[in-house]
């Protein structure tokens, strides 16, 4: 499951660090202690920035880096579609073999297909994506940044 793409993102994460944003969330995976703090800045309908800090395993760290790559700069609708596709892939228990269409949407993130075979690790891969979804909802509803678990 440790594709080179994943190891690369783990060792050289993209967009790591906390920058300005309209919403911040803190998510924890209680079964393994993985944590992420994630901020979202929306520029109108476009995902302006996703910045993050956290600790955890290679999968959760690499997944946040890939998320940053994929979502920043995208229209919200498209970003959501990517998030949903990623969720679908991760919940497939190794049953989905990504096709060209999926690869076009997920790019580097198709490397996580193998992770979906390991139920214990799926949550690691999804941690940042769930945090992004949550933070985006807050940013749009104008809720002030707050902690959630």
């Amino acid at each position, binding site marked *: *499951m*440790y594709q080179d793409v994943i*190891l690369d993102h*783990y060792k050289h994460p993209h967009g790591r660090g906390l920058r300005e944003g309209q919403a911040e969330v803190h998510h924890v995976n209680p*079964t*393994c*202690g*993985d*944590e992420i703090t994630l901020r979202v800045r929306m520029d109108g309908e476009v995902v302006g920035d996703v910045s993050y800090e956290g*600790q*955890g*395993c*290679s*999968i959760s760290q690499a997944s946040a880096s890939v998320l940053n790559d994929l979502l920043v700069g995208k229209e919200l609708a498209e970003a959501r579609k990517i998030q949903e596709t990623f969720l679908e892939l991760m919940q497939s228990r190794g049953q989905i073999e990504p096709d060209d269409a999926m690869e076009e949407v997920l790019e580097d993130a198709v490397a996580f297909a193998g992770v979906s075979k*390991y139920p*214990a*690790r799926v949550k*690691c891969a999804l941690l940042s994506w769930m945090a992004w979804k949550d933070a985006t909802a807050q940013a749009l509803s104008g809720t002030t940044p707050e902690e959630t678990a």
Partner: protein
Amino acid sequence: MTLPPPTRRPLPGLLDTEAIRKDFPALDRVVHDGKKLVYLDNAATSQKPRQVLDVLNAYYERSNANVHRGVHVLAEEATALYEGARDKVAAFVNAPSRDEVIFTKNASESLNLVANMLGWADEPYRVDRDTEIVITEMEHHSNIVPWQLLSQRTGATLKWFGLTDDGRLDLSDIEQVITEKTKIVSFVLVSNILGTVNPVEAIVRRAQDVGALVLVDASQAAPHMALDVQALGADFVAFTGHKMVGPTGIGVLWGRQELLEDLPPFLGGGEMIETVSMHSSTYAPAPHKFEAGTPPIAQAIGLGAAVDYLTAIGMDKIAAHEHALTEYALERLRDVPSLRIIGPDTAQDRGSAISFTLGDIHPHDVGQVLDEQGIAVRVGHHCARPVCLRYGIPATTRASFYLYSTPAEVDALVDGLEQVRNFFG
């Protein structure tokens, strides 16, 4: 890929693992396209020998019936086998009486049983708002949460012993922790995360001085060393079958007879009664008073077979084997760069579960890369999160040995860790 092991001295006191391993079908398992399984997750659960599985099958194929009160052959056989298992377990822990051995579903139920009995008990045992409960910071969640619940429900104060930097109980303030208000002291004999063997005598002495009851969680002791409940001096001892080559679904609570007589029942139902009317019921004497419903019959019988198996090999020999292996493993792990042992770093007063961190490589990654090489370890907080908090780490990787573990498996672990470091280096 594989490093040559350092010139390995023959270890003193090892068992004939070649013969023993033949008894355990699961140890022949091959995983990930041809990797031989190296099973180092024994603190989570042990593998089962053919001898135990044979007894389970014979029970189900020949003598399966509900126990007690039956007048037909199968019911009498099943009852004799079930009660025979109680005799075996009583002998295994040197219980003064077989009636002190209660079968539960696991150690967690045993621990909860005591907590609940004390909540409903009359004086002098009753835990209520003016009393205190004492545990330690190295308990398994199963020996923390029942006491948190009891404390919430009764208003009693929950206190605990902290830990020293080298993974031992800090008993320096024992007089302040265990006081005249203490009703119960519950602690682990061998820690499942740190490996520490705790000093029972000092704690029991202080508890007896103040008239507190003592419950010992022997879940990680019963499988690995001779256990003598009389020598321990405790009032209750809990352990679990699946960690000691027995089936899942069976645990034990040993308790002193007078206490079992005085304390109220926990679960109500068939088997635990003497006579029932709609208006009121009276209860059978212990152990039946605490065994409501159809017991885990096959599982108790299987535990009896497990106890036979361990006894035939000899608990002292098993302890010596694991001690030698633990010493060897600690020595080899000490040489792995950036590896930090969480818990005592010598084999003295120590069980064979070894937790560690490896630089800042997350334990999940350590475990996964080891798994790809066929090496099964456990990663996480091992149901002892307060220990992780205490040592400021999110989780650990834990390797744990048993009677069938070998020095070659220690070598495989060390080699595997080298791979992990290369991979994430």
